[in-house]
């Protein structure tokens, strides 16, 4: 593929008719700042698809998730552009949020720290039942029956006993299962999981990832999973959005991203990961650290940390098609066609 044939594209390239969630050109700036924290990102999640949003602290991945949920405090930020479409209905994020009755119902969210997201003063059964009662009504007894079924569904043994227990009596993995049970209470179409396994041990992480994988298979629920762990991405994702400095720098099917990474940041992240099959030596790093939002450079936001950047990069790179469903925002992708490195 020669660079001449590359064409700028708009929005996600792989929009299937079954797209549950679609975010187009979303830009958000916090009040009192001059630079947008999230800058023109587009992504989509289809039924049964797991989209992993990967990036480091401060790349805007959680802000994006919170905005989709409408959970950012009012008056703290301005949405400069962005259309959200969910289950075929469109919302202009500049003026409106997702209606709150969808929240916790059609869209559910789980967080990194299951201890702080659960209420320590209420039993597990009450907390799951609350979510059922809120959206489905019915009696408390019915809701508790539903809660018991949900505990079974998320693989908790002795559910009758667990219903009566309080969060402090549960281990970290168990608490995350309870969080997932609450999220599933109303058969959501979309699950947003913000670093759901980061606080867990690796054997427990494997159990939770398998659970999420099984659930999307059984229920056809779409999942947007936020993570910083490329290992988790490789294990579970169908598609990947790599974020840097509030922008999606590369987006595509997981196999494409791992077999054919195009953006220097993606390549850097992959090189920086210690590998089991290639121990020792020095890791190739991504130099420096993410600049504070007010110091974010114009043009390509990665250019201050990129070994290949030059004056071309002061202009913002448009997303280009790099393969089937694969897009990348870099003036010099793929590298080998554009640059040489001399010792």
């Amino acid at each position: 593929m020669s660079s001449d044939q590359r064409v700028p594209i708009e929005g996600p390239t792989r929009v299937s008719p079954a797209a549950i969630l679609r975010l187009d050109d979303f830009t958000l700036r916090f009040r009192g700042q001059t630079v947008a924290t999230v800058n023109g990102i587009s992504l989509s999640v289809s039924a049964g698809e797991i989209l992993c949003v990967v990036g480091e602290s401060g790349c805007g991945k959680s802000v994006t998730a919170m905005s989709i949920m409408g959970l950012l405090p009012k008056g703290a930020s301005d949405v400069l552009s962005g259309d959200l479409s969910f289950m075929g209905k469109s919302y202009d994020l500049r003026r409106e949020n997702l209606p709150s009755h969808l929240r916790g119902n059609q869209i559910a969210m789980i967080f990194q720290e299951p201890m702080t997201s659960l209420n320590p003063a209420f039993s597990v059964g009450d907390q799951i039942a609350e979510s059922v009662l809120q959206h489905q009504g019915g009696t408390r007894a019915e809701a508790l029956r539903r809660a018991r079924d949900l505990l079974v569904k998320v693989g908790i043994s002795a559910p009758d006993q667990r219903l009566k227990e309080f969060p402090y009596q549960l281990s970290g993995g168990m608490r995350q299962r309870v969080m997932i049970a609450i999220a599933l209470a109303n058969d959501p179409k979309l699950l947003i999981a913000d670093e759901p396994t980061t606080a867990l041990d690796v054997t427990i992480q494997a159990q939770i990832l398998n659970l999420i994988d099984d659930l999307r298979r059984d229920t056809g629920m779409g999942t947007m999973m936020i993570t910083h762990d490329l290992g988790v991405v490789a294990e579970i994702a169908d598609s990947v959005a790599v974020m840097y400095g509030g922008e999606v720098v590369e987006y595509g099917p997981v196999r494409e991203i791992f077999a054919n990474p195009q953006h220097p940041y993606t390549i850097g992240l992959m090189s920086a990961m210690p590998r089991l099959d290639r121990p020792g030596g020095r890791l190739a790093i991504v130099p420096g650290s993410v600049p504070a939002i007010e110091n974010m450079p114009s043009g390509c936001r990665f250019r201050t940390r990129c070994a290949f950047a030059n004056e071309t990069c002061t202009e913002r790179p448009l997303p280009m098609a790099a393969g089937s469903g694969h897009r990348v925002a870099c003036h010099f992708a793929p590298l080998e066609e554009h640059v040489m490195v001399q010792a």
Partner: protein
Amino acid sequence: MSGDLILRASGLTKRFGGGGFLTRAPVVQAVDDVSLEVRRGETFAIVGESGCGKSTLARLLMRLLEPTAGQVVFDGEDISHAAGPDLTRLRRDMQFIFQDPFSSLNPRMTVGKLIGEPLEVHRPDLTARERRAKIGDLLRTVGLTDAHANRYPHEFSGGQRQRIGIARALASGPKLVIGDEPVSALDVSIQAQVINLMGDLSRDLGLTLVIIAHDLGVIRHMSDRVAVMYLGRIVETGTAAEVFDSPRHPYTQALLASIPAPRVEGEGRAPQLSGEMPSPTAPPPGCRFHTRCPFAGPECRNSVPELAPVDTGEVGSRKAATGTDHRVACHHWREIPLPAGAARSAPHSEPVEARFALYRAAIEGGQVVLKARVPTAAT
């Protein structure tokens, strides 16, 4: 033989709780009969899940905690119950890097003060001018600059703070540095920088490193030898290659299989460990792993397996161990098959490998030259 050993623990045990006048707190068996040897200049890793006792073990090795039983010998000296001036001397020779660079630095002290503090304690002979020079040296050693000495911790990013923590640990000129999860709070790109730094330091300063971590990729990358802990005991130990490439203990195998990795087409998910670690207040009898082990038999419930050499040809008691050998504490390791193929990375095509090589060359100081190309419509 003990000449190259810097740290030796034997029969180390730590219990918490119990006692009490009217009530009895449950006794937590945090570390139970652990013996290990760390050689001078090597990087030794202790790996395990939360609650396995690895942090308690690190604190015992450093004499931040006093063992209930057993002993720790550092540089030929029994330090298990060191106190007073001996302890001060020990603190000079053995330093600690903490996990969280946000809570382990005093926010009211400048970086220069933070790094100068251990110098004041351990090098009282230095004049103020010499101390300032030394602080500058230390900052440069960890990749910061002299000017950073006047700033406060909040002005730094997580990675820089961890560098400050490392500079502080190096200030007293230690022989051994213990890092408790030194990179796990950092982002991937920053983590790689700190891993590289620690590798450079261990090589250039001849430091011995003991790393406590749960990230198996980090451990495989950094360490020479590894000990795997489960519920207070070491279940397997050996060189990193032995433990990672031919794990013998079913727990080690399960741990390695849990590492998230790209799934190969048509291959099912790796078998996962069911259940969770039992509470250390009531560890199961016999082999502590038997409640989760697919290979457990009746003897596993009754007798504690000894940490014995994997090489069957060798005759030797535990005492005669050289530390080079691969040891496992399992009654059944001979019958348990080694896990198949360890190639765990997505295959890259040649052009993509070339792209990675290009990236590395550019990062390592190569000069980037643009290729001449046909101008596109945009230019």
